[in-house]
């Protein structure tokens, strides 16, 4: 949190520059000197994923969502916590060299998601593994246009003030760059020949883009009262119907930018002398999640687990004053059972019958 406060202090001197389309590839090549460059690339007809970039021409600027959110760089899907010597009962932290890396093209919702993870992983007890990677990562944000599943505007996470080093806003002939951290300033200073000053036309274009983007969202208003409505409708038939469709696969939690549950396991080596303590992503949609010693399960039924995700995501995150859900729409987009998370929340909000929304299904 201290880091966040520091950044917040810095935001008062927000600096704006512009980069032209012709310069953007040079800029991306220059970014590689700050660490390994990861950016979204198209991996199939429909899907994008973040990969290490060799040729900057591969980078997809118009992607909406990636297969896994940016959290995977900070909490690895599976990571080693300790090397265990079974005979001596010692636990040694693996010596891992964390190399600096650059995440290019992170959308506003994911940046808010990372700040929520900061609030959890760096609060009170500081998670060393997360903190080291967070310090090594440079975040370059990128503006986006929403698709049918996006509702970050209802979550107030459609525009970020802090949590990035640079943020690129699309202009007709380039990008307006907001500088959000000391590292961001340093990058702009060191690549000064690529940047120019922001002109009146650029400001007009930025305004136009923001306006167009706001109009593209399918729903307007706010979800601020959602947590109260969810509690009041906890006994509705809606939850029986919807949880019935659920396959319990955990795709929604894996693709969520703020889902952070993990499980820990000790894996012994074949010789029985050493072992590894690993942690890996877990999901509250699994039956094992609420199990305690003696066999009692605090989330016994599929409906319990299904509703738990809704209340957990919609609860209040004190650190930012928003909910844990950032409105990215990943859980709906990647749900194999076609459960419409946003649609269900809209039903809770307006209590009317759902509109027949025809989503092009994946």
């Amino acid at each position, binding site marked *: 949190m201290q880091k966040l406060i520091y950044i917040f202090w810095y935001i008062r001197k927000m600096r704006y520059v512009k980069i032209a389309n012709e310069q953007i590839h040079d800029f991306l090549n220059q970014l590689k000197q700050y660490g390994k460059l990861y950016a979204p690339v198209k991996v199939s007809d429909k899907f994008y994923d973040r990969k290490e970039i060799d040729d900057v021409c591969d980078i997809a600027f118009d992607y909406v969502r990636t297969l896994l959110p940016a959290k995977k760089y900070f909490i690895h899907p599976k990571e080693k916590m300790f090397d265990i010597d079974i005979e001596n009962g010692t636990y040694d932290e693996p010596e891992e060299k964390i190399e600096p890396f650059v995440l290019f093209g992170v959308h506003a919702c994911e940046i808010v998601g990372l700040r929520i993870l900061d609030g959890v992983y760096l609060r009170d*007890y500081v998670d060393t593994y997360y903190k080291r990677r967070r310090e090594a990562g440079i975040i370059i944000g990128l503006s986006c246009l929403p698709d049918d599943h996006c509702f970050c505007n209802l979550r107030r996470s459609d525009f970020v003030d802090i949590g990035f080093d640079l943020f690129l806003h699309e202009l007709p002939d380039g990008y307006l760059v907001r500088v959000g951290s000391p590292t961001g300033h340093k990058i702009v200073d060191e690549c000064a020949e690529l940047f120019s000053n922001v002109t009146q036309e650029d400001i007009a274009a930025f305004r136009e883009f923001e306006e167009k983007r706001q109009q593209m969202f399918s729903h307007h208003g706010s979800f601020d009262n959602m947590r109260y409505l969810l509690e009041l409708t906890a006994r509705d038939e809606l939850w029986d119907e919807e949880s019935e469709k659920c396959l319990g696969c955990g795709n929604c939690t894996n693709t969520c930018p703020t889902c952070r549950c993990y499980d*820990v396991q000790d894996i012994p080596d074949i010789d029985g002398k050493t072992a590894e303590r690993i942690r890996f992503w877990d999901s509250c949609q699994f039956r094992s999640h609420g199990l305690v010693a003696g066999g009692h399960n605090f989330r016994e039924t599929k409906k319990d687990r299904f509703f738990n995700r809704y209340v*957990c995501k919609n609860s209040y995150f004190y650190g930012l004053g928003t909910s844990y859900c950032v409105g990215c729409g990943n859980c709906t987009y990647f749900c194999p059972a076609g459960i419409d998370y946003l649609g269900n929340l809209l039903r809770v909000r307006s209590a009317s019958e759902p509109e027949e929304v025809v989503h092009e299904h994946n």
Partner: protein
Amino acid sequence: MNTTENIYSLYKCRVLRVYDLIEDVKLLLFRFENPDIAESWTCKPGQFVQLSMPALGEVPISICSSPMRRGFFELCIKKTGRVTDKIHELKPGDFVGVRGPYGNGFPVDEFEGSDLLLIAAGIGMAPLRSVFMYAVDNRWKFGNITVINSAKFGNTLLFRKELEAMRDVAEAENIRIIQTVTRDPDWPGRVGRAQEHIKHANTDPEKTYVCVCGPPQVYEDVFNTLIKNNYDPRKIYVTLERRMKCGVGKCGHCIAGTSTFLKYICIDGPVFGYYDIISTPGLI
């Protein structure tokens, strides 16, 4: 805690003694190997530690000894799975890894000057023993104390002998110990569920703090009886269990509550007040 230190690293502890309490339940006494940690380590009644068995994993266990005993602590462990099976094989002299203490613990500072009523059912005596021992060690800080310890059978009453042995001294100190069983026809003492003995307590309902621990199904009846006997619902506390993997509010296994009251039981609990419990589905 130092921020550069890994919060998941463990303190080495030596097993000093192992006692058999009842079938499948053992009481283990531990000491910190590092004298500096033994000196500085403190806990509050109702907190828990993460106990690690190499190559098997970690389990969260309530501390059941008084925090007044520096450098030592006791854990009461029931055999319920892979890790606890292995813990039962520990012998004096063996080493284990421990980290903690975690959780909010009982607000014992707030209890000072009031009467105490501790109601345990089944294995629930384990966490409440830390409150009881703390109160005994600081006898002058509290008013009258009653402990109600209940179980199904006489030979499954946790800490039965210990409580029996201190009964005479306790009575002189205004501590009432009530041990009751529900299903044992051969038991010579009191019978019936824990709540049926609340009326025998020596505590004044007007100024009593109540701590309850037991399996989830006992709470409702205990609460109802307490309120019927004029105990203040704001002064009823309950300690809960979950299978915490981290103990520090990260892993999410103990998240419970609803959208306006979402709590990590490991850092916001495991001790919760009566109104939190009854207004939050899924907490117990």
